[in-house]
């Protein structure tokens, strides 16, 4: 005790601790013999001791030797004085805890016996064999405390851990001492027994116990088990740890991640120590061949075969026979670990990664058959979604394949072999619809590619660059793509998706100024028929991308091959070829159509060869566009033959398994697939164009001259899948060529588009869709395009003349003209405010006699000479206006004063007006077209042209066409009649004075008969209004309603703008009374009211007379006009109140 105090006085910390420990240790000693009454007290004291020791350890101080002994004494006396069965679990647990903390420090100084005793104590507690062989099984917490104590006894210390006052390499020497001690003949059984106990406790469901057991196991195997002893425990350890790693013992799905990692570490230790290259070489189980001398010795039999009976007990000799047996078993065990690559925790995956790397690095000679398996682990791990895992896996690869590693050659060979195997397996897997396997195989290839791609660029790694060399070989001219390509293409069977999802209609998206990038359009996906799951499809496309990005320029050969195959027809294999080419190119160009957002363009250096290649590709695609779709019909008979060729090639080229699989799954016969897939072909061509744009970025702009038309043409396709893809393409190109919006892009390059369109409207080459493209173009670009599109419109009409029998073309062209007119309309409304309405002449004489007086006064005056120059008024037939105009220009201009045109009232026609004039003058011939739809369209066209055109341009044409227009009023189709009425309405409201006589002489009688007819027709119409003496239909969307409306509006315009003849006005007043009926559609009532008000301005008396008489307010002579069936009082009231 005195010595203790002396010791304590040297170190102030120890002194404090001693003071703290003394009141604990003394009572423990007093109660060393446990009785049921003293147990709670001891337990309390022990926990105080543990706490005190823990606090001391946390303070970073070291226990002195004497203090350790002082503390150990009461503990040991407890163990001594009591039989183990009488020590309760609780006491033992706390005792072991205290002991563990003590041993942590005691390690540095204790003697071997104590070490061995504590070791045995812990081992027996864990194993439940303390006492005389039949102790009771301790609970998990106690076992855990024992394992912890063992851990503090066994774990390695580094020189940093060395307590002050001891020599620096003390840690090393102590460890060697312990190891030597443990490997003595007497101690080996104890180690073995402890290992066994630990293996048992490692299976415990108690997680902390499991964890610490595995830790101890690892260190025990790594350091303390003798070299020749490890092979004996290999099978047991591997089998237990495999079980633990796979979580077979527990009932939950996955084992805990840390546990997996620890168990793998144990397994790794036992494998490396038992069948590692080094130890097996040493014992002659395998021989390595490094130089020629080794090779010479190769034939000799091994010099020494250690007989197993020469060895001490428990030891196993490493013979080649033993090695073969163990490795094959081990391979099976490793194989069972495969599910771990999909373990959900990072810790487990990292553990697996380290495991695979270590095993690969240390057992290249002894365990060659497991190399592919372990490499595939690593490859799968490098595909992991966890960045840390994939990064670690890649680092493992770079370590394994680093030039310093002697066995990297065999690893590289294995890698290449894996890639080849997987590629050749893919067709079979795809056709057998094994999605998971496809996923796996594609993932492996992808990982290999990424490996070579990512690492060879950063540090020039010989091994990895040879991997990429292998990929180059595969994709290059000597890679035999003609063989594996075909078999792959034969099974890649694409179908267009069942639905194409679009957030908004295509045209709307294109038109609307959606500056918010929220609704970026993504490419609609193609779907693989044979691959159901999305992940497998994604893995396939990632694989191709990785192949592309890993390979250098030699892979252009593969791309070229795919593309040339793709453009040989529109078969499904051609489509597949295009798909493959697209994905490869994505990889080469390091872009992706699937991902949103643009890759940082500055990050990549320009690759001229690639750009050149892509440029040529884009141009070829654009050129082949027209051929492809023209030949569509021609190719059909040839297709089946080509298809058959493909099939023979598959059967020859691939494994015979294919045949059996086809028996199982006769998919080819069950659903007859279409021989050609022009749709998908087109879609994938668009993909390729987008990728080209992505690679070329701003340098893509010159290619727009070729590319724009195919895209626009697809955009107007009636198939929404294509049009969506085209829209996405347009967006993609817009993004990559740095335009703000697709509309901007088109605006900037409308000359290219116009050029392309106009070439496809020529006599030699007519593309029906071109008209739609033109319509889109006109809508988007507006007046700019109109000014230049004069010749295109002319072409339209030329084609109309030639193809007027074909409604499709005519309609398309008329649509274009309509768009042109809309644009002009917009322009005109902007440029010139609406001219004042021509003063209705008929009004003045009735309201005042002033003009008459004026006329009387001036009637003798000489007539005024009209000397105004009307400027370059047309002097020839209207249809050929351009020629005479040019002549006048040429002849007149040098002579006339330049100010001449300004003097005229009519401004010279703007280019747009000239164009409209041309349109009008040429379209009137189609008023007699056989198709009613076209007749109606032309009439609508004319009516929309009316407000735009100057009178001088419009009226002659109308005059010429007037008989035809009138004829249309008696057209069989009601919608033509209603369109005609609309035209007349438009004419009446815009050029009223011109229409005056025509309306009253020609139109009004026809209107009258139409009204009568409609009256009759309405009676039979299902949509007609019900109710007493109703007029018109319920809906505003019937032709009769529109016709009524047009008639009413025409009459309003006529009454306002045209001189009215009295007899006609009376008829009008009578005819339209019925529209004042309250049962009539409100819109018509409104117009009718307006009409009567308008008439009332001219001839109030007539209106008053007719209306009041009809409503029955008048008596006498006018009674005959009374119509009781009409309830017109309200409207009459409105009208009469106006005056």
């Amino acid at each position, binding site marked *: 005790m005195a010595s203790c105090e002396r010791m304590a006085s040297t170190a102030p910390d120890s002194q404090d601790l001693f003071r703290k420990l003394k009141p604990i240790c003394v009572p423990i000693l007093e109660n060393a013999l446990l009785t049921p009454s003293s147990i709670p007290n001891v337990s309390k004291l022990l926990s105080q001791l543990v706490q005190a020791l823990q606090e001391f350890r946390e303070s970073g101080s070291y226990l002195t030797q004497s203090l350790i002994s002082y503390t150990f004494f009461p503990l040991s006396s407890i163990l001594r004085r009591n039989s183990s069965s009488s020590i309760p679990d609780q006491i033992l647990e706390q005792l072991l805890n205290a002991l563990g903390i003590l041993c942590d420090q005691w390690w540095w100084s204790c003697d071997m016996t104590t070490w061995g005793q504590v070791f045995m104590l812990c081992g027996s507690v864990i194993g439940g064999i303390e006492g005389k062989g039949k102790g009771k099984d301790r609970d998990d917490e106690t076992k855990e405390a024992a394992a912890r104590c063992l851990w503090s006894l066994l774990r390695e210390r580094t020189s940093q851990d060395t307590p002050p006052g001891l020599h620096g390499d003390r840690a090393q020497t102590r460890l060697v001492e312990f190891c030597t001690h443990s490997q003595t003949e007497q101690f080996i059984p104890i180690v073995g027994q402890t290992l066994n106990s630990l293996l048992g406790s490692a299976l415990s469901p108690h997680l902390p116990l499991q964890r610490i057991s595995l830790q101890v196991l690892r260190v025990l195997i790594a350091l303390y088990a003798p070299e020749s002893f490890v092979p004996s425990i290999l099978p047991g350890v591997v089998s237990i740890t495999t079980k633990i790693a796979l979580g077979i013992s527990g009932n939950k799905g996955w084992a805990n991640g840390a546990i997996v990692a620890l168990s793998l570490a144990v397994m790794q230790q036992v494998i490396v120590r038992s069948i590692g290259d080094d130890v097996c070489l040493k014992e002659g189980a395998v021989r390595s061949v490094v130089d020629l001398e080794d090779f010479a010795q190769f034939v000799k039999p091994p010099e020494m075969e250690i007989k197993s009976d020469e060895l001490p007990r428990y030891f196993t000799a490493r013979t080649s026979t033993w090695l073969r047996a163990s490795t094959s078993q081990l391979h099976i065990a490793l194989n069972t670990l495969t599910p771990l690559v999909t373990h959900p925790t990072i810790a487990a995956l990292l553990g697996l990664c380290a495991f695979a790397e270590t095993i690969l690095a240390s057992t290249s000679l002894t365990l060659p058959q497991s190399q592919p398996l372990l490499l595939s682990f690593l490859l799968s791990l490098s595909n992991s979604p966890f960045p840390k895992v994939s990064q670690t896996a890649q680092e493992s690869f770079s370590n394994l394949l680093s030039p310093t590693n002697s066995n990297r050659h065999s690893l590289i060979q294995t890698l290449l072999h894996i890639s080849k195997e997987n590629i050749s397996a893919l067709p079979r897997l795809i056709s057998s619809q094994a999605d998971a396997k496809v996923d796996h195989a594609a993932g492996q290839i992808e990982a290999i590619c990424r490996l070579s791609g990512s690492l060879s660029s950063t540090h020039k790694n010989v091994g990895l660059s040879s991997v990429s060399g292998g990929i180059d070989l595969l994709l290059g001219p000597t890679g035999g793509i003609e063989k594996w390509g075909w078999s792959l293409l034969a099974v890649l069977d694409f179908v267009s998706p069942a639905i194409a999802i679009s957030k908004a209609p295509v045209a709307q998206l294109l038109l609307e100024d959606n500056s918010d990038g929220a609704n970026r359009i993504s490419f609609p996906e193609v779907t693989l028929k044979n691959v159901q799951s999305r992940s497998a499809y994604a893995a396939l496309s990632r694989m191709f991308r990785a192949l592309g990005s890993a390979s250098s320029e030699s892979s252009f050969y593969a791309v070229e091959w795919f593309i040339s195959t793709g453009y040989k027809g529109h078969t499904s294999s051609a489509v597949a070829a295009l798909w493959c080419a697209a994905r490869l190119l994505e990889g080469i160009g390091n872009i992706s159509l699937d991902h949103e957002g643009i890759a940082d363009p500055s990050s990549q250096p320009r690759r001229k060869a690639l750009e050149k290649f892509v440029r040529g590709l884009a141009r070829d695609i654009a050129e082949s566009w027209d051929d492809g779709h023209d030949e569509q019909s021609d190719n059909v008979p040839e297709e089946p033959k080509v298809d058959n060729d493909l099939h023979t090639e598959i059967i020859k080229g691939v494994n015979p398994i294919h045949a059996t699989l086809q028996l199982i799954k006769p998919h080819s016969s069950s659903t007859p697939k279409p021989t050609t897939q022009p749709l998908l072909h087109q879609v994938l061509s668009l993909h390729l164009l987008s990728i080209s744009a992505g690679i070329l970025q701003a340098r893509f702009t010159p290619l727009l001259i070729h590319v724009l038309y195919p895209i626009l043409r697809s955009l107007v396709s009636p198939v929404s899948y294509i049009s969506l893809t085209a829209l996405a393409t347009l967006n993609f190109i817009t993004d990559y060529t740095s335009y703000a919006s697709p509309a901007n892009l088109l605006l900037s390059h*409308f000359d*290219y588009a116009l*050029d392309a369109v106009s070439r496809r409207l020529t006599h030699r*080459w007519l593309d029906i869709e071109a008209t739609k493209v033109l319509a889109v173009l006109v809508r988007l670009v507006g007046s700019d395009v109109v000014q230049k599109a004069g010749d295109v419109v002319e072409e339209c009409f030329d084609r109309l003349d030639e193809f007027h029998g074909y409604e499709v073309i005519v309609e398309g062209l008329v649509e274009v003209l309509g768009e042109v007119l809309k644009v002009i309309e917009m322009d005109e409304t902007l440029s010139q405010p609406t001219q004042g309405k021509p003063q209705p002449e008929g009004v003045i004489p009735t309201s005042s006699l002033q003009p008459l007086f004026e006329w009387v006064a001036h009637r003798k005056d000489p007539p005024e000479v009209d000397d105004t120059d009307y400027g370059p008024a047309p002097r020839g037939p209207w249809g050929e206006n351009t020629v005479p105009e040019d002549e006048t220009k*040429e002849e007149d201009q040098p002579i006339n004063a330049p100010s001449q045109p300004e003097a005229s009232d009519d401004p010279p026609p703007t280019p747009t007006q000239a164009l409209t004039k041309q349109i009008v003058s040429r379209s009137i011939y189609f008023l007699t077209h056989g198709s009613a739809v076209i007749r109606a369209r032309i009439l609508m066209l004319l009516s929309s042209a009316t407000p735009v055109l100057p009178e001088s341009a419009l009226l002659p044409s109308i005059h010429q066409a007037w008989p035809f227009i009138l004829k249309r009023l008696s057209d069989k189709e009601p919608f033509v009649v209603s369109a005609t009425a609309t035209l007349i309405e438009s004419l009446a409201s815009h050029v009223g004075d011109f229409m005056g006589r025509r309306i009253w002489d020609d139109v009004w009688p026809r209107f009258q008969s139409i009204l009568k007819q409609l009256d009759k027709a309405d009676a039979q119409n299902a949509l007609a209004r019900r109710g007493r003496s109703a007029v018109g239909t319920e809906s505003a969307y019937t032709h009769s309603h529109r016709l009524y409306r047009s008639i009413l509006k025409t009459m309003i315009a006529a009454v306002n703008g045209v001189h009215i003849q009295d007899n006609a006005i009376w008829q009008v007043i009578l005819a339209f009374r019925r529209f004042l009926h309250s049962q009539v559609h409100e819109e018509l009532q409104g117009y009718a009211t307006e009409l009567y008000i308008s008439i009332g301005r001219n001839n109030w008396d007539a209106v008053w007379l007719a209306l009041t008489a009809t409503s029955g307010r008048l008596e006498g002579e006018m009674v005959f006009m009374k119509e009781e069936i009409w309830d017109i009082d309200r409207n009459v009231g409105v009208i009469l109140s106006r005056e």
Partner: protein
Amino acid sequence: MASLPPPPSPVHLLRSHFSPVNVLSFSNDNERLYSGDTSGLVVITSTRSLRAIASWKAHSDGLLGVEEWDAHIITHGRDNKIHVWARIDEFPAAASIRLGGSASLPGLPTPNLRYSLDVNALNYCRFSLLPLLQAEHAIQNTDTEALIAVPNLVESSLADVWTLPACQRLHAAIGKQESSDTESDGRGNRQAEGIIMSMHLFTTLPDTASSSSSPRELRLLCAYENGGVILRRYTGPENKKTIEGIGWQVAWSSTLHVESVMAMAVSRACTFALTVSADHLVGRYDLISAGLPGVSLEDACKVYRTKKPGNAAIAIRDDGKVCAIGGWDGKVRLYSTKTMKPLGTLEYHKQSCQAVAFARSTPSMEKEHDSTVQSGLLEVTDDEESDDEMSEEEMRKRGLWLVAGGKDSRLSVWTLMSFDKR
């Protein structure tokens, strides 16, 4: 004919003009297309982007001719002016990458006017430029870089030859001598030929046997209002100013057309010339053998009858095998120059086709010549870029271009087959 594929449709249409297009020419490296119209507008179009590099009102009246000459552009207008402009160089890469390389980009540059020459443009006759080789004028120790032939300032039936850039009249009133010799009253014979419709100034090839004394002999081929063609050669001392056509001798004279000659083209090697007129005839003049002793003029100058009357323009391809004739019906007809066998008809223009031009067949060689003129460093980068932008295949295709300009103020670009293997 049956073996030939159907004639193509135009590969591009250019809408840069608003008035009838009169004149067309390619730059030597095929990079630029020059076009001029009746309003005096000249447009330089890049043959890569097919967009205007420059578009400016060069003359107040219609164009008669435009041509690139080294770093200059020569334009000839009906406003009695010849302007020499500094050429605008826009590097193709810059043109395409330029932000907003747009169809409707305002603010295109206008070339700077270097100097002008007053000429007589009453007779619609285009100038004829003869660039002198560098070596040549270095030896002669003059600063004359080119000779230019234009109609005489006073009398449209005579020709003048001026030097550039000095704008000195070297030879005046060529053709006056022989006419005034015959008639004393200053009328008559000259009127028989009428005004000059087209002319071509060239030198004989050094290896021709006809000119043994001097290596190069200046010659002037003129086509006249009466349908005749006269070749004159200069026999006087070099660089000596002449007046009244002294020193110029008529080598031969041939009248094949019944109408006035509308256009004349001389092959690039100056071995033969072709003329067209309002009639259906095409005259072919062998410039080497004609006038040689032992060769009758009828053999050397032949008339060929085509099926269509009314031709407005003619152009001969660089290799001298194919010629294109633009007709008043708007069609461009291709003929073999040897046999005048029709090779095809290009139909696009609806109104008269007033100008046709072939692209240079061998632009690369011309380019070498160019690069010696310009500074070297820029050329190199330019080359790299151009290789980058255009593949050789495209260059070759561009070499097969034919451009036609019509009264409809549009240019149509056609890619022809080479007509080589037949």
